[in-house]
């Protein structure tokens, strides 16, 4: 990713930022020395951030990549090349974990993103719409751990979900929601929907407010209402925001850990583990440190690959001309 940034691109790209960057003008008027400081005078200002991120995040990152080529139990380690990656392909737990991760991504795109879109559109221009949006956004600031505790209370065998089902006469539907695959993964996706939808509602609401009034009025004059208005005006106008929401949703679903860890610890029998959980269990419970690092790297590659489009759009520095 830095390859791209270290080529001649930055200089060319900086001109695309709609304002002039003052450091160019400063350099022009003051030269490379003198009271405006030399070309390196920004370095001390960036150094603290670089030190923190470099020592505590970037170095561990490369150390993880390096460690994934070793068989390491925390005490002794030996170089095994790509063995850890070869083992991944044969590990049924890893396979289940990938499947669950796909469930999480698909489920997150299906539930919180769609629910967020519909709720935002429905509450837009509604009386007290802001209040309803606020209520749905509340769980967004509750932690994954706390959400999981509340939902455990709902999903456990004597929990609220089964109580409701029995109350309305659907006894046969009552079940141990967290005890069997795939219900456990699916019910946890529902729990995370409760938490994650608020963010999407707020983001879509921002996008809706940015739609020009003239566009809507013109469509109304042409007789567009209801579904046609939504399909041909609202949705296309929300495209830019949808990219952001979908990107964030995918990345967050791939990183989901807290809720699963607190609700099931990946169990029973590791059936509800996602890649994030599998890595944690292999590394810190089973002390397969090298193997865990390989899983972490696989997860990172998936995260970066799937956030690439979203990131590319987000960075003014690398944004292609005319997409702003």
């Amino acid at each position: 990713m830095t390859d791209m940034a270290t080529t001649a691109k930055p200089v060319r790209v900086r001109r695309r930022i709609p304002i002039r960057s003052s450091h160019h003008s400063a350099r022009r008027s003051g030269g490379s020395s003198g009271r405006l400081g030399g070309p390196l005078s920004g370095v001390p200002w960036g150094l603290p951030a670089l030190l923190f991120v470099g020592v505590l995040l970037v170095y561990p990152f490369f150390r993880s990549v390096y460690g994934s080529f070793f068989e390491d139990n925390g005490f002794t380690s030996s170089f095994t090349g790509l063995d850890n990656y070869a083992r991944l392909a044969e590990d049924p737990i890893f396979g289940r974990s990938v499947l669950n991760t796909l469930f999480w991504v698909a489920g997150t795109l299906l539930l919180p993103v769609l629910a967020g879109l519909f709720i935002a559109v429905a509450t837009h221009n509604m009386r007290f719409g802001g209040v309803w949006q606020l209520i749905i956004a509340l769980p967004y600031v509750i932690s994954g751990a706390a959400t999981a505790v509340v939902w455990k209370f709902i999903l456990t065998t004597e929990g609220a979900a089964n109580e409701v089902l029995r109350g309305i006469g659907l006894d046969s539907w009552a079940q141990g929601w967290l005890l069997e695959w795939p219900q456990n993964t699916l019910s946890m996706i529902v729990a995370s929907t409760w938490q994650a939808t608020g963010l999407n509602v707020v983001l879509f609401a921002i996008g809706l407010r940015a739609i020009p009034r003239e566009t809507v009025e013109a469509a109304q004059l042409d007789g567009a209402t209801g579904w046609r208005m939504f399909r041909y005006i609202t949705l296309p106008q929300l495209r830019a925001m949808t990219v952001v929401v979908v990107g964030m949703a995918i990345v967050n679903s791939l990183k989901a850990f807290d809720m699963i860890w607190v609700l099931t610890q990946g169990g029973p029998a590791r059936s509800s583990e996602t890649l994030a959980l599998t890595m944690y269990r292999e590394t810190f419970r089973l002390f397969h440190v090298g193997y865990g690092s390989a899983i972490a790297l696989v997860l990172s590659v998936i995260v970066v690959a799937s956030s690439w489009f979203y990131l590319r759009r987000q960075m003014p520095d690398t944004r292609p001309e005319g997409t702003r």
Partner: protein
Amino acid sequence: MGRVLRNVFVGACVVLWLVPLWLMVVNAFTASTEYSGSPDWTFQGFAIFDNLSTAWDEARIGEGFGSSLLYAVVCAAAAVLVAAMASFAVVVLPIPRPAFWFWLIFSGTMFPLQMFLAPLFGMYADANLYDTRMGLMLVYVAWAIPFAFFLIRNQMTTMPPELTEAAMLDGASFRRIFWRIHVPLLAPGLGAAFIFQFTAVWNELLFGITLSRSPEVQPVMATLTALNNAYASTGPPVILAGTLIVSLPTLIVFLVFRGLFLRGLTVSAR
């Protein structure tokens, strides 16, 4: 017809979203000795204060609460300061390859935490930082910097460079320009970054359970997780009371500083 349908849909969603919160509050009011084994839907007593104090003292949520408050306030503030300085360097000051610096600092927020955990654990064990408050605070600052940097940098690029130029012509030093021009003008942006990172650090679990063990060091989410693992013996009312305690700070911050949250989201989605 459409209007009715819309109102019903919104109403149903709001009710659905309130049910878990309602259950949490109602059952935290039930005395833990009188808990029937299945959830209550209406208030069954007024033992909330007993439950809160049991969670606070016996389950040691109080200790975690203090630690987390320290971590969240100090680390978010430190990260915002460091990130603001880095944004200043990348946007305003002469620095070689600003885009390279941007990606280097920003890369910290792209990868899943799993990528950092195992080496961090090893480094912390070697440096005697494992299970210390200092160790957790260092990693929280580092973890909070990238996104704060992203937010602040994005807002700094919208400031007219003439401001900096004018101050330079008047002979102000970089330090003076930073503290007298950029910090005051970006105050809402810095506030948004602080609120975001306060919430993030407060809600963080993974670093907490990986890099610390003892109750006086662990952040509150790790304490809550430990309490939850004793689900059967402690009883739901106390656990839900504990959940209420750990959720209140972020809920209050969110309700009070809605505007700043919205600002942060708008900037990050732009």
